[in-house]
């Protein structure tokens, strides 16, 4: 995914994702937009379900996204 692109969350690996990420609104069926990557390409700054949050790549890799 490139900066500025949007996608829909298809699936989340429930075993590897902490509850708090879901509680921030990161849920299957929601739109995600990659707003920015940190200068060293990690973490990622995203907007999902109205929340602006930053997460690490390893966490992001547990979220399956299809592009729109």
């Amino acid at each position: 995914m490139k900066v500025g692109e949007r996608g829909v969350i298809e699936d989340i690996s429930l075993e590897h994702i902490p509850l708090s990420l879901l509680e921030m609104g990161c849920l299957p069926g929601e739109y995600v937009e990659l707003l920015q990557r940190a200068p060293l390409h990690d973490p990622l700054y995203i907007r999902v379900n109205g929340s602006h949050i930053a997460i690490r790549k390893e966490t992001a890799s547990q979220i399956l996204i299809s592009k729109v």
Partner: protein
Amino acid sequence: MPDRKAIKVALVGNPNTGKTSLFNQLTGLNQKVGNYPGITVDKKVGRAHLSDQVIASIVDLPGTYSINPTTIDENIVLQTLLDKRHDDFPDVIVVVADIENIKRNLLLYSQIKDLKIPTILAINMADQIHRKGIEIDLDLLKMELKSEVVLISARKNIGIEKLKQAILKYKSLGTSSLAHISQKIDEAYFKEIRSKFPDISLYKIWLYITQMDHYNDLDKEQTLIIDEYKKDKVKIKKYQHKETIFRYQQINEILKKTYKVNKASATDLRTRLDKVLTHKIFGYLIFAIILMLIFQSIFDWASIPMDFIDAVFADLSTLVKSTLPEGQLTNLISEGIVPGIGGIVIFIPQIAILFLFVAILEETGYMSRVVFLMDKIMRRFGMSGKSVVPLISGTACAIPAVMAARNISGWKERLITILVVPFVTCSARLPVYAIIIALIIPQERVLGIFSLQGLTLLGLYLLGFGMAMISGYILHKVLKVQGKSFFLIEMPDYKLPSLKNVFYTVVEKTKAFVFGAGKIILAISIILWFLASNGPAAFDEAEQVFENQNDLVLGEPSNKEAALASYKLEHSYIGVMGKAIEPAIKPLGYDWKIGIALISSFAAREVFVGSLATIYSVGDDDEENTTIKKRMAAEINQETGLKLFNVPVGMSLLVFYAFAMQCISTLAIVKRETNSWKWPVIQLIGMGLIAYVASFFTYTLLI
């Protein structure tokens, strides 16, 4: 709270919703509104007049995104709301939401509502409703949420009266739950639980199973049942996810009917600022400039009021001595208490400036961007981007810094941050550095602009920070700690800091430091004075011994008096202690007088200057030499005949103070935060060894 009429109100809400502003409006008390999650750490209670007769006792609970806690601060929320016998168990809860992030805020509301406590939803920042193009159907929302909903603007004092009215009528609010989670997740499972706990609300039991490890209102048998349920961790996690997904579904449906946003007014400012502030070059550059500005102001701007304070207390000491009748009490005041208080007051300028910067950075939302920028780098050193905040706070004081590490969710990253933060140059080291630098480094300028003394100080900052990073790296490799690290941070909207909030933060933090650490400093100053003016047998015989030696001490009477005082100090309790450790510290270049200061510094570093002040004011009555600095500069090493505070000794001392763990208050807080004596002990010994070895090499190489 003895007042029976007071309605107990708990404020709950996400971070950055203006919950604390609302608390300020309701109670008139002021404290912090931060942009950094979990800034409201201490328990904050205030009183509000709801009407002429009714008073409410309002508690401002820590900001949290959910009732399922991930940090200690968030845990307080759950503990308060689950335990009916808790002092702050509320009659009514006010959930504070922010109009823009209402969906996420409603998740918390939905969880809270299921606790079956009367709950009011206060939607904050309502003054921006039109600017953001938002429409809300308030009546329908009230119906859907099965409770009272009030639009407020805490900063602009809108809707506060309405909220007070709603709180007054809390008894009429329904307590039915919003989401019936059991049916959606696994009906049979929850039915079984219900049959075992018929008298307790199902959601509460669910929270017991998922979150708590002790349950105040359950008997032994019930505790065992809960522990049995807890074992199936996989199932619990799956159900928690299901629960969250279901709650969001319900909220989405409610909002579809009641809430509309016309997306035209997108957040342009945020995007543009983010582009610059998190840019791969400008981002770091701006951060570096801000740090430089902070350090520059600590040393340069703060030195003016500090020199003034130093001089004032020296004068005061002389004044007390010359006006009060001679005696032990006068000596206690002029040589113990006055310099002791002076040693505390002198910190105020630096601490205030540091907290001013930290408060502004947090208020504006910039701090979250720094966390974002620094995460990858900090991870190499075993820490998280969130460790930046403790490391910066550490330049003020390690105590709030260790507490600020609570926001780091991974245990290993948090532990490493706690362990290395005391290496960062705190303001208690500054007076020590300042006085030694002034003694050994000439007041010259390099290349015409940089002051050599300033550069030395910068070097010491870098030394402390570098050691923190190196230790972090080593600990990262060495420590085998279980537990996955997880990183998640909200990037709040940028906003102008409220001057009022910043001002109160600075005042409160400075006050807390002065009265917290100040007590120790003052107490030790008095003890030191006592130890220096009393002693074993030889001390009491001093005057006799001196009378006999009278002929040997030639010169004027004033010289004789000074020599007597010096003799007395040498034979006082503290002199004996200083001499006892002299062999151990001699390789570092110190004499027994510095030994005295070192001993007293193990309570708190800043006492170094205070105890030297006490030591030298006992040993010297010359009115011309009233400031500590002058007295120290005049000190001669009796063996070599050279100045005692020469470059090798000074550098060795600087290095020792940079690395040694000399702060009882910090050790106490590390023990509390890590819940074991193991880590503070490791810290004390490890840092002590590093300090000793490093000082030894510094001294040996320079001499």
